[in-house]
């Protein structure tokens, strides 16, 4: 009897790119839930809109490049990019901003560089930076975290109208709805010569790093730890990033606690935790050696601190990630692990 032949191994584990990407999506659910709770329906509307645009763009580009649609649309990578970007957008961002951001991510950053696995830069962060540079005012107009249960929360319909037609409902005062983020407030007021303790007495700062924000960060931390536990994300990257951010912010806080925010504030505010577990861990654009990942993560943490404290933007995760993306191949080259049987040292 004759048989077809194939090379070994003949059995494979149950895994796929789609599974890996879906895990990332599941892990984002707790954090997203907190965001929806504190910032309203806009977060969900952004997610849905970004996902739809991302899948359409992915399909169009795959078709244009002559690639099979089904396997690539089923790998959920476009959805992950869409979610990462959508979570980073202000909840009432006009619809065209989301569309521009997603198209920059999927069309330019991903497919023009060769598609899944070939992009040197994190697509979601390219989309985010394009928007941040082009529309700085809209990008900083975050909602004041209120909670959906409050009487003055926006309804879903009002949210949809705000996003797609523009204009806020008349029952809200313009400054009663949107406001600066805690990182933004800290930055502006430090510039005015106020001390950290004084600034942090403002209610926007909540318990640790901003009411609402710290809950979202905790949600992303829980999901992120699960990603590390399931080995979907490499532990070295969040460890390196949060570790270096903690170390350097502790040093500066120790030098002058009135000019520099405490480490717990830095760790729990902005996109630090979300970035550490969900953005920096994008394997395609990160370093791939174990030691390299620690260095890569640490580099991001350091850059985040420098941008936040001394740069022109309130948060710096997107820029820090993109800068370290450039460095990843070089880091890999110099951090090859010792192979089995090679002399130690």
């Amino acid at each position, binding site marked *: 009897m004759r048989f077809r032949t194939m*090379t070994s191994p*003949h059995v494979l584990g149950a895994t796929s*790119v789609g599974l890996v990407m879906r895990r990332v999506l599941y892990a984002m659910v707790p954090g997203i839930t907190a965001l929806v709770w504190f910032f309203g329906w806009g977060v969900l509307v952004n997610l849905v809109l970004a996902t739809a645009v991302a899948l359409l763009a992915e399909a169009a580009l795959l078709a244009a490049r002559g690639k099979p649609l089904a*396997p690539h649309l089923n790998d959920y990578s476009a959805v992950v990019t869409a979610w990462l970007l959508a979570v980073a957008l202000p909840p009432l961002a006009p619809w065209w901003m989301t569309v521009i951001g997603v198209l920059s991510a999927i069309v330019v950053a991903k497919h023009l560089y060769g598609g899944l*696995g070939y992009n040197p830069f994190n697509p979601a962060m390219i989309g985010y930076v394009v928007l941040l540079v082009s529309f700085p005012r809209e990008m900083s107009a975050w909602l004041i975290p209120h909670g959906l249960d409050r009487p003055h929360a926006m309804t879903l319909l009002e949210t949809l109208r705000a996003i797609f037609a523009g204009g806020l409902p008349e029952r809200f005062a313009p400054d009663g709805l949107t406001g600066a983020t805690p990182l933004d407030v800290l930055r502006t007021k430090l510039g005015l010569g106020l001390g950290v303790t004084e600034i942090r007495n403002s209610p926007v700062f909540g318990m640790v790093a901003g009411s609402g924000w710290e809950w979202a960060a905790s949600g992303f931390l829980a999901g992120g730890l699960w990603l590390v536990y399931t080995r979907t994300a490499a532990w070295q990257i969040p460890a390196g990033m949060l570790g270096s951010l903690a170390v350097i912010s502790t040093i500066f806080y120790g030098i002058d606690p009135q000019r520099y925010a405490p480490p717990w504030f830095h760790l729990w505010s902005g996109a630090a935790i979300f970035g550490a577990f969900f953005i920096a861990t994008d394997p395609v654009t990160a370093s791939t050696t174990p030691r390299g990942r620690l260095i890569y993560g640490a580099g991001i943490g350091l850059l985040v601190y420098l941008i936040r404290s001394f740069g022109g933007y309130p948060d710096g995760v997107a820029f820090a990630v993109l800068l370290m993306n450039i460095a990843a191949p070089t880091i890999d080259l110099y951090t090859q692990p010792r192979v*089995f049987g090679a002399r130690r040292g």
Partner: protein
Amino acid sequence: MSGWFPFHGGLKTVRHKTESNQQPIRSAALPKHVTVPLRQHIGAIAKPVVQVGERVLKGQMIGQPDGYVSAAVHAPTSGVVAAVDQQAVPHPSGLPDWCVTIESDGEDRWIEREPVDYRRLHPSALRNVLRSAGIVGLGGAAFPSAVKLNLSGHCERLDTLILNGAECEPWITCDDRLMRERAAEIIAGLRVMAQLLEPREVLIGIEDDKPEAIAAMAAACAGSGYAVRPVPARYPSGSVKQLVKLLTGKETPVDGLPVDAGVQCFNVATAYTVHRAIDRGEPVLSRIVTVTGHIRQPQNLEVLLGTSVAELIAQSGGYRDGVRRLIMGGPLMGFALHDDRVPVTKATNCILAASAAELAPEQPVMPCIRCGACADACPAELLPQQLYWHARAKEFDKAQDYHLFSCIECGCCSYVCPSRIPLVQYYRYAKNEIWALEKEKEKAELARQRHQARLERLEREKREREAKLRQKAPPRPAATAEKSPIEDAVARAKASAPPPETAVVTDSRDS
């Protein structure tokens, strides 16, 4: 001390051991004919020493080892040599190789068997006995054991002799059954090996999912000083370098052998054949083969070498419907057979008939996302994602910078790859390309040397011709000694013209 030193990576796989390890080893029926490949080992092919039509007895040598790294091949049963020609053999290439085909006479009549008192034998004589008994590693590599039983040139004193009973690949249970049923014989063979190698300690590594085998081997070891060491069931614990690490904590050097780290390792089935050769005077004629998978009656058979795989399947109840692939060896490192009409060899530990349920579903290959799951799983501690990148780009020198040749092709990387990239296939390809390039270089170098030699020869011949011409011109005095004094004087007068030293110098240079 009963702990172990974990190796990096590896896999927890589905075991599929109980399909075949529940019933004792059965002897396969005597086949009508056997086709015995002359190359069942690593090294030079054995030289056939029988002719077509010749009667042979069971155990008679039919292929003689050719060189140091080679092994003898024997008639597995008595009968008549029907052919000495190229036949289909189990090899990934599917290419035929030289075989001796014997029509069995059904009598299975032995040659004179002479047990050896190994304690009185000089080590080199003992190694020769093993060499002519055709003993090779039965774990799968089939490297001639006599070579590994000689320490000279590697290390002064062996620290550890390891007997490999790990059997880490799914489905395979031939060593498990052998250890359960013939532990005393395995230990008897181990004693011979220990006498040759004089190790400081002897360890037997068995995966802890084989409690019966561990118990049987421990009982057989009682009083011998040999220690049975259960190791965690984690593929590829049975790979030599990984087992050495597990049991001793030592790492085999990148470009070296375990013996360079003071450890030597043999399969349990090899020790069993050593016992047969020494204590019973029987060369390697048969082995235990696990016949399993999608067949009616999975089992372990004691099979004469040269028996057709198709016959083993038939004796195991035949294929069930839907067999898609026939694998020789395990599902992770075994190779797929084109045809079941190939003979069992010394390296055949398992025949696995796989249906779609056992095989990996066919999925599209996705781009590498550099997730590093392969690096986490790689027991050689390589970066498979980088190796893949360079192998794909045909950057072979860079692949070698990433230690391509440390890859043991265990398949862990492919197993865990979410993009379903056939990584091992890329590494095999890269290795083959590099070997081909090196051969090409060698050939070119040889051609260059040949050309150089030819030029030198032509030059020399030219010089010789010229020298001879010159010699002819001035006849030597000795040659004319018997001539008349007058002629002699004339000749001497002539000879004074060209200086005779030149000729003499040329002569001496040529001699």
